[in-house]
């Protein structure tokens, strides 16, 4: 083990805009060459911790610091953001948003340009860096032409171009990535670590996906304090994760539900190396026998029907011969990798885009000639980013907008808005300015503003992106309630948990074609579909195989219904 490179000593930090400190009394040492995962739910202070390391705190985000933070033996408050960036390289979470250059080479060169490196050595270093991260054959490509995986490589290259870095900091590298690209990103970090032996710190809340990388240590933060600092195996054997509402790997969770105790020696950090004892297997088998099939009453009346729908955009075929039917009262997921045409399909259904051929029927009537406005009375669309939807200052006005524009009487507006706000849990805030709401509340507000028009179908684009388990459960349970009230819901998503736990059917879209229309369990255990749609096989399936369970799919179903009952008790 190397020398300490980072040392927090009784370190606290409070943003000027906040009353309570975000980090409290952190004492932590990280050694050179270590791979460390910093894990915590939203608002736990893990991002602030990262910002303390790269200098955004206190140089960009001001606040009060107490205690000591030394990096490479120097106190950070005596340094500045530029000298820190020579030691700590940061890869931000939103890859698309952090590209500055237009071409691969130009973006990677950005730091060098700012360091006034002359043209000739600059091109040489950029060339070397592109080789290091494996994009040398794409050096002159425009970044926008690249796939998600290559973009990851470019953003890493832009940081590694600073060759003397001691430490690489990844701020939620898995956010916004589909499961396959997420896996790829973690492997890439591992490769770089093996080549360069720099210290690696990853900030994440998606534990199971992050464990692709073999960490030396996992530090769990909650409410600004360190609650655990131990090896991955030790952590998975403990019950810390439950307390801080971090989703633990599904396979260890299943073992715990079945009554087993996990021992660190069983190597639980990777499902393929996990040693199951005979008792473990037995318990899993007996546990799953309690499975009772929950039939959700669906009156199976076709609501939305697409027949041979095609759509082209600038002479490029985006959707090809799509045909499917959605029953009234269903919750279904629409999955596929980025650019597969999921959002376009939603826009075609809502009339934002005009399809080139085919028919769309709602309740047996063709709607494909109706205007956006008219279709909106029956089909609502909620964008991923609530900021793109909100146009008023007050919560009440935002929800009332659609009704007022439909010339509904003010008395009726008030009645309906109040009712919707109650359903969405926003009634107490109805006279508040929208800016006072949290992200999750804003999300609910945008749903409310659509819901008030009483549509029969709501389409939601990635409703849970970037949310930790607690907020995920909150949002999804709320949407499920709406479903029970009779609203049919379509989710555009690549969150496999959402798919598995909340939807009864998954439509898999690949390059604008529908390749599967099956139950999520079937999709997530089919290797061909998984690969084509950039998904990942659920680890529950691997566990079931390992435990020699007779019917792995039934095992997965049992886990899901059991897990949801447990999580219901949180609220």
């Amino acid at each position: 083990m190397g020398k300490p490179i980072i040392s927090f000593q009784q370190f606290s930090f409070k943003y000027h805009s906040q009353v309570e400190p975000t980090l409290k009394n952190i004492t932590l040492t990280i050694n050179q060459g270590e791979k460390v995962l910093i894990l915590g739910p939203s608002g736990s202070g893990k991002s602030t911790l990262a910002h303390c390391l790269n200098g955004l705190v206190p140089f960009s985000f001001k606040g009060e610091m107490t205690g000591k933070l030394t990096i490479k033996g120097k106190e950070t408050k005596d340094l500045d953001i530029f000298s820190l960036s020579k030691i700590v390289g940061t890869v931000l979470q939103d890859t698309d948003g952090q590209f500055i250059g237009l071409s691969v080479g130009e973006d990677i060169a950005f730091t060098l340009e700012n360091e006034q490196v002359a043209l000739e050595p600059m091109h040489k270093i950029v060339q070397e860096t592109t080789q290091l991260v494996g994009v040398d054959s794409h050096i002159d490509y425009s970044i926008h032409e690249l796939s998600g995986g290559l973009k990851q490589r470019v953003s890493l290259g832009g940081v590694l171009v600073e060759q003397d870095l001691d430490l690489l900091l990844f701020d939620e590298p898995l956010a916004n990535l589909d499961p396959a690209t997420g896996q790829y990103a973690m492997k890439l970090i591992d490769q770089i670590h093996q080549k360069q032996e720099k210290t690696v710190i990853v900030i994440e809340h998606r534990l199971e996906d992050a464990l692709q990388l073999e960490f030396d240590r996992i530090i769990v933060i909650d409410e600004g304090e360190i609650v655990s600092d131990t090896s991955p195996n030790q952590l998975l054997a403990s019950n810390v994760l439950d307390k801080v509402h971090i989703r633990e790997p599904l396979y260890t969770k299943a073992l715990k539900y079945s009554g087993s105790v996990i021992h660190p020696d069983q190597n639980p950090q990777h499902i393929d190396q996990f040693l199951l004892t005979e008792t473990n297997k037995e318990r899993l088998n007996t546990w799953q026998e309690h499975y009772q099939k929950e039939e959700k009453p669906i009156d199976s009346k076709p609501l939305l029907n697409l027949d041979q729908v095609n759509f082209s955009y600038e002479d490029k075929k985006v959707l090809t011969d799509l045909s499917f039917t959605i029953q009234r009262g269903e919750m279904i997921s629409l999955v596929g990798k980025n650019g597969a045409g999921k959002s376009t399909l939603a826009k075609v259904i809502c009339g934002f885009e005009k399809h080139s051929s085919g028919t769309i029927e709602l309740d047996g009537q063709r709607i494909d000639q109706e205007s956006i406005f008219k279709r909106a009375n029956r089909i609502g669309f909620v964008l991923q980013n609530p900021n793109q939807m909100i146009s008023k200052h007050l919560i009440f006005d935002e929800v009332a907008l659609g009704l007022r524009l439909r010339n509904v009487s003010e008395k009726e507006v008030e009645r309906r808005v109040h009712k919707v706000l109650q359903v969405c849990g926003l009634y107490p805030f109805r006279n508040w300015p929208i800016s006072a709401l949290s992200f999750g509340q804003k999300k609910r507000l945008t749903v409310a503003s659509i819901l008030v028009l009483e549509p029969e179908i709501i389409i939601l684009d990635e409703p849970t992106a970037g949310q930790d388990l607690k907020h995920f459960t909150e949002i999804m349970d709320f949407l499920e309630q709406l479903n029970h009230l009779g609203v049919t819901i379509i989710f555009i998503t690549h969150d496999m948990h959402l798919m598995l736990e909340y939807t009864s059917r998954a439509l898999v879209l690949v390059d604008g074609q529908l390749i599967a229309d099956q139950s999520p369990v079937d999709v997530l255990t089919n290797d061909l579909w998984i690969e084509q749609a950039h998904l990942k096989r659920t680890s529950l399936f691997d566990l079931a195989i390992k435990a020699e369970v007779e019917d792995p799919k039934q095992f997965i179903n049992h886990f899901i219904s059991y897990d949801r009952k447990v999580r219901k008790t949180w609220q």
Partner: protein
Amino acid sequence: MAVKMLGYFERSSVIHQLSGFTKLVIFLLWSSAAMLTYDTRILIILFILSMIIFKLSKVQLKEIRYVLMLILFFLLLNNIAIYLFSPQEGVKIYGSSHELFSIYGRYNLTLEQLFYQFNVTLKYFVVTPVALLFIITTHPSEFAASLNKIGISYKISIAVSLALRYLPDIQRDFRTISQVQQARGVDFSKNEKITKRLKNVVSIMMPLIFSSLDRIDTISQAMELRSFGKHKKRTWYSERPLSKLDWYSLLISIFLFIVIIIVTFHDGSRFYNPFN
């Protein structure tokens, strides 16, 4: 989809080979010359030259027709305005009056006025192709480098080129946001009264501004973490060292500029007067 108004057109032409810096300097010299002189002979020569240069760039006129239409529209407005506000400008300048016909009061049509407005129009035609060429044949990456090289602060240069970069993204956001608002019932079509329509446009601007602010936040963090603003100067990856072609082009344009200035001012008047 929003029409491609102005952007980089990838071609392999002599004009594209020139460095952005050269093109910017030539553009500045060219437009100052065209601005200063009213010598019709010079303007005609420059006009022919600018047509040749445009031809060399291998960009088709129809590819930039929307911008051209826009410029022609302003040219028309400008001509109407000149005539409305000073119908006797030509007479004042050239010192004679050949009246073709009279309309009302001081609004008559003289050969002098026509000739004067012909010169103004010609100026547009001289400057427009060269200005457009600078924008559409300079790779966006080189754009900032060229601005910086003529002395504009690199922070402003980058801001300009980032703004150009993000324009397509913002256009896309704008479209999505307006579709979502239309679904809620906001009407942008001509059925709505103009005041109401303006108000409705504001309902798109708010979400657009807020989501763009998010973008700016991320990019500025990324830039700061990668040492942006550390030094007073910076270098440019996309900068191209000046080639022989660049030097020749620069020398020729400077020479031309000097000749134009001498010819224009040698007799103490910027105007060529065919009426003497």
